[in-house]
């Protein structure tokens, strides 16, 4: 029986009885209080409407049970795994942690899918069976506690229902608390990100084959796939170089489009051109990556080869690789245009009209008014927009993965392939479960740097925007 229970896909099975219990408690609470009032005018004398009594009882029943289920969902799997590992024969445990965890992964998978066909490996089949029994036991236990807690909640909640009971106040306080929990999930996400990055980064530096902090931050030799050298400077360099190339495209085009749209364009042109520009932001980055790798990168290579072939240049001036920093940077710049343009558009529109009118009244042409009055006034906001765009460029992944190549080089040649922080994170973590080698954990150290830098940029930019907004309000 326990084994069958262990095989079932539990998630959906938990939600249904929970919802059923909640509905039952709601209607039961409503009828209970309805029974107290036997006349048409009585309900006016209730402290709270019958519905609130229903909600109160539903909360009393379902919330504690839901809490039990949540605890179960968080802890059950890891508990069952450690219980199974403790029962495995010692010769298996003597292998590396990665192999053991892979074994348990497969056991868990088989148990969840309930593949009846035996694999033929006696130990494996026995483990699957045992795992299902352990999980079934845990589930039975959790179910029992949940039912008990729910029943207790229903019992004591039901006892409190009376005509004078302030059900509404309790219900509303509970709702507010639930709303707060939802808002706090955003905080929890940040905490989760910071904690996981910090812990794994510390682990990376304390691993026997991990580097020292200075060797990581200032070393110029990166060879993580073999787990040898972890000098991340080439990655930082590549990231900055591609971001810079992207900015060379995005800032002039984005800024000039924003100026044209807000100062020159007719409302009709603006009404269709602005959404079309914003389409650029809605295209998935993997599509940009494909575009960069299949159309732009060959063009860049041809151009580099043409330059190499010119009579007055040395033949090996440019690397002319099939994937290149320039291809990735160009396309990334196009992707970022709408960020620059829509943010600049906002700040340009926020410049008060009297400033413009004053400049025009003094006889300035439109372009003089823009260059000498509007842009200086909007400058902090525009810088903030550019900072946000840079942080976007630094964190962009798919374009560089598909079009920038993977060689850790420090070179100023834009036609050479080059690697970035995000590229390395993807290539180090794709298709690997074990988190115990310096190779995989180094991705978290890179992620930590990435997170820190983008966060810094964002905080500065948001500050500037806020202060700037206040200045004109």
């Amino acid at each position, binding site marked *: 029986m326990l084994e069958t229970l262990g095989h079932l896909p539990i998630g959906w099975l938990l939600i249904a009885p929970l919802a059923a219990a909640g509905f039952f408690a709601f209607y039961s609470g409503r009828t209970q209080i309805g029974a107290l009032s036997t006349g048409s005018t009585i309900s006016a004398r209730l402290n709270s409407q019958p519905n609130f009594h229903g909600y109160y009882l539903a909360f009393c029943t379902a919330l504690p049970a839901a809490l039990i289920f949540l605890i179960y969902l968080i802890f059950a799997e890891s508990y069952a795994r450690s219980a199974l590992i403790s029962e495995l024969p010692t010769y298996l445990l003597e292998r590396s942690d990665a192999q053991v965890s892979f074994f348990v992964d497969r056991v*868990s998978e088989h148990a969840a899918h309930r593949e009846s066909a035996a694999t033929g490996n006696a130990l494996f089949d026995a483990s699957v069976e045992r795992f299902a029994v352990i999980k079934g036991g845990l589930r039975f236990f959790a179910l029992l506690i949940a039912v008990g807690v729910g029943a207790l909640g229903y019992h004591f909640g039901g006892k409190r229902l009376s005509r004078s009971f302030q059900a509404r106040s309790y219900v509303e306080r509970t709702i507010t608390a*639930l709303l707060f929990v939802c808002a706090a999930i955003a905080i929890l996400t940040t905490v989760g*990100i910071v904690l996981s990055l910090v812990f794994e980064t510390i682990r990376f530096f304390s691993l026997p084959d991990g580097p020292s902090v200075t060797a990581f931050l200032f070393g110029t030799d990166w060879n993580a796939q073999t787990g040898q050298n972890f000098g991340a400077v080439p990655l930082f360099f590549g990231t900055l170089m591609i971001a810079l190339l992207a900015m060379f495209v995005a800032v*002039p085009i984005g800024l000039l489009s924003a100026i*044209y749209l807000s100062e020159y364009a007719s409302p009709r042109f603006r009404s269709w051109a602005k959404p*079309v520009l914003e389409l650029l932001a809605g295209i*998935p980055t993997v599509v940009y990556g494909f575009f960069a790798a299949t159309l732009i990168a060959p063009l860049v290579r041809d151009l580099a080869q043409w330059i190499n072939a010119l009579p007055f240049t040395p033949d090996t001036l440019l690397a002319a690789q099939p994937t290149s920093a320039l291809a990735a940077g160009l396309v990334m710049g196009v992707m970022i245009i709408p960020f620059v343009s829509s943010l600049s558009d906002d700040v340009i529109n926020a410049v008060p009209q009297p400033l413009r009118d004053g400049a025009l009244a003094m006889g300035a042409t439109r372009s003089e008014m823009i260059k000498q009055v509007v842009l200086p006034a909007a400058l902090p906001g525009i810088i903030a927009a550019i900072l946000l765009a840079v942080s976007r460029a630094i964190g962009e992944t*798919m374009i560089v993965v598909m079009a920038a190549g993977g060689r850790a080089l420090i070179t100023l040649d834009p036609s050479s392939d080059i690697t970035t922080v995000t590229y390395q994170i993807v290539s180090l973590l794709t*298709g690997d479960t074990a988190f115990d080698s310096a190779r995989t954990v180094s991705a978290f150290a890179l992620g930590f740097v990435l997170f820190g830098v983008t966060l810094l940029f964002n905080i500065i930019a948001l500050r500037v925007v806020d202060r700037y907004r206040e200045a004109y309000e």
Partner: protein
Amino acid sequence: MSKSLPSPTELSAARLQRRRNAERRFKLYGQMAIGIAIGFLALLLISIGTKATSAFSRHMVDLTLERPDLATETELSVTEVNLAVRDRLLEIFPDASSARAARADLFGITTRLAVLPLRDRLNRNPNLATRPIRARLALSDDLDLYLKNQLSQHEQVYVGEAGRLAQTDIGRYRLSDAGPDGFFDFQDRIEAMGETRQDILISLSDAWFEFEDVSGAVLVLKHLAGPLPDFGEQSNAPISATLLNSVEAGRNASNRQIAMMLYLQKRDQIDRRFNTSLFTNADSTYPELAGTAAALFGSLFTMLITAIFALPVGILAAVYLEEFAKNTVLTRVIEVNINNLAAVPSIIFGLLGAAVFLNTFGLPRSVPLVGGLVLGLLVLPTIIIASRAALRSVPPSVRDAALGLGASPTQAVFHHVLPLAAPGILTGAIIAMARALGETAPLLLIGMVAFVSEVPASPNDEATVLPVLIYKWFSGAERAWEPMTSAVILILLVVLVAMNLLAVLVRRRFERRW
């Protein structure tokens, strides 16, 4: 002394001209900037669109298995059906059976797994296996690409009338001319081509040869496919040459395979039809058999989980921050935190998923459940910010009226403000879901790049999603993956455009000005 200084009027006129020119230039820069941006968008869409069109159709070879002789008690295996197909191919091209290379060319027309749909059909209905059965098999990707791209560049040339055909060696033939004209025109043409000459196929009635040499009245040929005409008799049939625009070494389709395809095409046994398997098949290692079904369902399940998690949490969080939160330090921390979270690179969320969901909680890899949760966390700030804006746009008078009539704050919000803000919230939610649908990087880190050959049946099965499929197919080595990748991009873009249009429609239909 003769040159007088320009008068003030002239000076100011010149300056005015300069300023006006500057004004025009500046305006032109703005127009150019917008033009470049829109031009890039157009270039992207056009280049992907043109590449994608060829993947929506493909060539199928149409064989009738006369005596399949496949009736067995047990289920048929791929190999058994494949043997029947090969027998049939050998019946069509009996000459190919003798030489090993020719057989390899012949069996390379379709890949081994192309018989899968046929085998499934036979297994479902065993009675079919005793009667002649029609088999439509996907042509192998290289040949399919050749037919799509190169066939139109073949050039037909009339060579002359056929005289006698004589065999010189195994597979080698000499074809003499029938009349006084000889093959001189053709020879001149060949000589004119010189070094730039590329492969030439010669056809005589149903037989296809590879051209080797010509001297006045005699063609030296190598037989490739099709039944040979009788030896020694003058047939006076016209000989025509097909000038290919490539040499055999430079492409994946051999001359013999091209000849076989031309032969089959003449007999209407190869046709181009809509590529349904692109939508019905799961992933495959062979481009001609690969489809998007698994990724479509994977995306569907992932979006389902994202919506179930992120929409309620995001909307309720927005309600809390906008309607209930007091201006405390904690509230401000939450607000700043949400704004910053919205700008965190998506790949960081992938690291979070790998460390917390996979490593700490021990959830399985490559499943939509985890992918959906990660994407849910990713779009949560977007949903909160959009929902807050929608709630803020509901005028305070609505709240005041509700409170004035005795509603509690909770009732005022849930009975009045939230329904009025719903269209705005919905618009924001659709746009956030569109963003989640196009996201790739975080999913790579939680293992959703696994090869999935089965359509997932639940959020707990291994799956991949459309953007990841684009990345995977892009990484494929065969050239046929490129149009396939473009086709998936097109499918993804169509879905995204539909979602965005829906958002615009919702906004237009329900937007209220207060």
